Structures are given as C-alpha cells and as structure tokens.
C-alpha cells in the first residue's frame, strides 16, 4: 500500500514538473547552475572512471585472449564496443548516482526540513518548477554529454594501457576499434545515458523533495536516493537491452 502511495506521489511530482516546463523564467538561473554542477563539475570523476575502466578492460581482455590465437586488434574492438554500448553509460551513471543523486537529495531534503520549500510556496512560487525541473532537465542534457566524455576517455585509457603493457600497439588498437564501430552503438549508449540521467535526477529530487523529519530524515532520504538510483539504473539498463536490441 505504502509502495503504491510512493509511486503515485512520484508520478504526481513528475506531472507537476511537466506542467511547469513553460515557466522558463522561474527555473532559467537554476538550470544554468545545475548544468554546471551536474555537467562541468562531474567531468574529472567521469574522465577518471572512463580511463581506468578502459585500461582495466584492455589488460584483462589481453590476458583472456592470450590462450587463443586471434588478431591483437580484436582487443581494441572488444574494449571500444563494450565501452560504447554498455560500460561508459552504466558505470558513469552509477558513479554519478553517488555524486549527483546524493547532492540533489541532500540539497532538497535540507530545504524541506528548514522550511525553505514552504517559504518558496508561501511566496506564491512553484517550488517544483524552481527546484525539480532544472535538476531533471540538466540530467537529461548533461548525462549524454558525459557519456561521450566517458567513452572517449575510456578508449584513450585502453589505448594507453595497451601500449604501456605491450599488449598491442596503438595502430592495432585503433584498427580494431574502427573495424567494429557501428554508429548505432553510440546512439544506443546515448539513449541509455539519457534514460539514466532522468532516472537518477528524478528519483533524487523525489526523495529529497518529500523528506520528513530533521537531519536523520535527510540522511535517510539521501541514502534511499543513491541506492534506488543505482537499482533503477541497472533495471533500466536491462529493460533497454531487452526492448531495443
């Protein structure tokens, strides 16, 4: 019963957000701030995640392919395709569920318990338009861009790891990467990161916006936002793979 109530509450929040889209003047400034916070400020962690994911994949694929005879360029194909189809979007999103999701839930939760959201509403503000819309929109815009950043750094990391470990030269890596490059893989990765951006920001907004209690409530809301974001990212990943591929 409680779960149904929560789903209804989440749906209503999204409906209010959708209906508030036209109030651009209300959320314009916050949208710009959030684009910076979600996008620009996440670039270092996304690059770091991408580089190490690509590097580790190259080393492990090289190790696994040692026992069979296949051209070394296959390592480049496997690494780049895995990154583009799956890893860049999923791993980046899981990392951002912690960084972005936790921040959003904490910010909104603190605003709720310190009556700042009530203050907005009591002034005649649409608090959903002011707080939720810019955060979700920024997620939708920035996650696909961060996916590109993660993919490029992942392929770069894989390439460098291949050279440094002596597993394969750069030319072989790039040959393999190009040989099995399908634009559809990027489109699919893009779609995934778009969906994950929505899942993480909307769940975090929901958990933060409806926090109850004091500091303990904020902590609980933040934990739930992070955990649920991760779970629903993995679930959405599976559903997208099953439906689209």
């Amino acid at each position, binding site marked *: 019963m409680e779960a149904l109530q929560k789903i209804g509450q989440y749906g209503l929040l999204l409906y209010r957000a959708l209906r508030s889209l036209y109030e651009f003047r*209300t959320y314009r400034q916050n949208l710009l701030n959030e684009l910076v916070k979600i996008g620009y400020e996440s670039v270092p962690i996304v690059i770091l995640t991408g580089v190490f994911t690509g590097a580790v994949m190259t080393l492990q694929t090289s190790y696994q392919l040692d026992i069979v005879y296949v051209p070394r360029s296959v390592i480049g194909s496997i690494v780049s395709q895995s990154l583009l189809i799956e890893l860049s979007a999923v791993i980046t999103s899981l990392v951002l569920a912690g960084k972005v999701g936790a921040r959003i839930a904490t910010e909104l939760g603190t605003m709720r318990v310190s009556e700042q959201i*009530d203050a907005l509403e*009591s002034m*005649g503000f*649409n608090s959903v338009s002011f707080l939720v819309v810019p955060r979700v929109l920024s997620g939708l815009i920035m996650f696909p861009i961060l996916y590109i950043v993660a993919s490029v750094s992942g392929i770069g990391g894989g390439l460098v790891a291949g050279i440094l470990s002596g597993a394969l030269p750069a030319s072989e890596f790039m040959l393999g990467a190009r040989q099995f490059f399908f634009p559809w893989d990027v489109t699919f990765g893009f779609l995934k990161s778009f969906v994950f951006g929505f899942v993480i920001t909307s769940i975090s907004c929901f958990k933060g916006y409806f926090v109850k209690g004091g500091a303990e409530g904020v902590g609980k809301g933040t934990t739930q936002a992070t955990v649920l974001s991760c779970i629903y990212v993995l679930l959405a990943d599976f559903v997208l793979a099953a439906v689209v591929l």
Partner: protein
Amino acid sequence: MIQIQNLKKSFGDNLVWENVSFDIHEGETIAIIGRSGCGKSVLVKHLNALIYPDEGNVIIDGKNIFELEYVELRKMRQRFGVLFQGSALFDSINTFENIAFPLRYFTKKEDEQIREEVMKALQMVNLEDAAEKSIAELSGGMRRRIALARATILTPDYLIYDEPTSGLDPQTSDEINELIINLAKNMNITSIVVTHDIHSVLEIAETVAFLDNKKLCWHGTVEEMRQSDNKLLRDFVTASEYKI
C-alpha cells in the same frame, strides 16, 4: 477578511484539532496561543494552503482557498508574507539576494530600484550593514529580522509570524515585537502571530485564539482574556508567570 470554518486536521490516527472556527478581520493582529505541539503552526499553514485540512474551509475575501486552482492559489499566496519559525532563509544566496528574491521573480523592477527597496527594507529592520553577509554569518535574531524584511518586501495584506520570538533573548524579542507593531500600524497589515509567549501577546495582539484539548478552546480580545474565567486559558497564562 479570513474566515476559518470548522477545520479538522489529523496526521494518520493522530487528531490535531477539530471544529476550529473563527474570523480574522482586516488590520487585526491576532495571536494564536497554546501549548507546544497543540497544532498552532499546523493551523496557520492552512491559511495559505501549505497544508490541506481533513474537513472545513478557509475563506479569504469570499474565496475558499482549498478549492482554488494552483495558479489562482499562487496568486492568493502572494498576498501573504510568512515569517517561519526557523526563518527559512535561502542559504545558497546572501542576505541582499534573499530579500530581493520576491522582487526579482514577481516584479519587473530594474536592478537599481530593487537595490533601493532592499536597502529600505534592511533599514526598517536596522540591518543596513548586513546586505552582503551570507546567511551563515547571521545570528538568530538577525535571521528573524532579515526574514521579516523578505516577508514584507511585496507589501502583503496578511503577515503570518510563526513563533517570531522563540529562542531569542528578551531584548531582541522586544525589538521583534516592536517591528510587528510598527508593520501592522504603518502598512495596515493583518497580522497572525503564533506564539506561546504571553508577554508578546499582551504587547502586540488585539485578539487571541487559544488552542487546547484538540480544539479551539477560547477566542476573544486581549481585554477579555484578562478577565476570562476559562480555566485552561488561565492555567496557560499563569503558567507563564505573567500576571494579567
């Protein structure tokens, strides 16, 4: 005029109060008093529909606010200024921007005009020097005064004060009380003050609504309160060690 009619509110199985009815007249300063946890803040949050009741109506100038569409409700809410218990200042922006906030979003005033009005509001609360301070730098009393400046910047018709003097020293409390009196007098604002500070009630209020036993226990003027033989009211007032 605000008419509160047969309000009932409960949270889950916990009844807060029921059958609460009274009127608030234009220009009046009413104090809503009662013990901690009796639902005073919950009651005033019904006045601008921040909380919806289980039963009953709040009629403002002939309109039941619980039946208004969201867009209409927001317009109605703009007629209210609210001073929240914890001040509810936005900690991501500084003092100046907190006060300028409603002006930036609800008016088309130029920056220069906004600056002028904000400085005037700061002057009113004797905090001209705090304009560029961050919220974290302000003391409790300063926050309360800045919140008051923000609540009045759009010259509302109704001003709700939720425990305006709680947690403040007697001197700062007196300053806040004086501000409330001046605002009511100079701007002809209808003031609704939630408090359990009898000293403040006697200083600022014209009428009193007393909540106890999950209902509106008593309602009348301050003068009538002094002579009331309502036992619950007398117990509450004498418990504050204030002789009426």
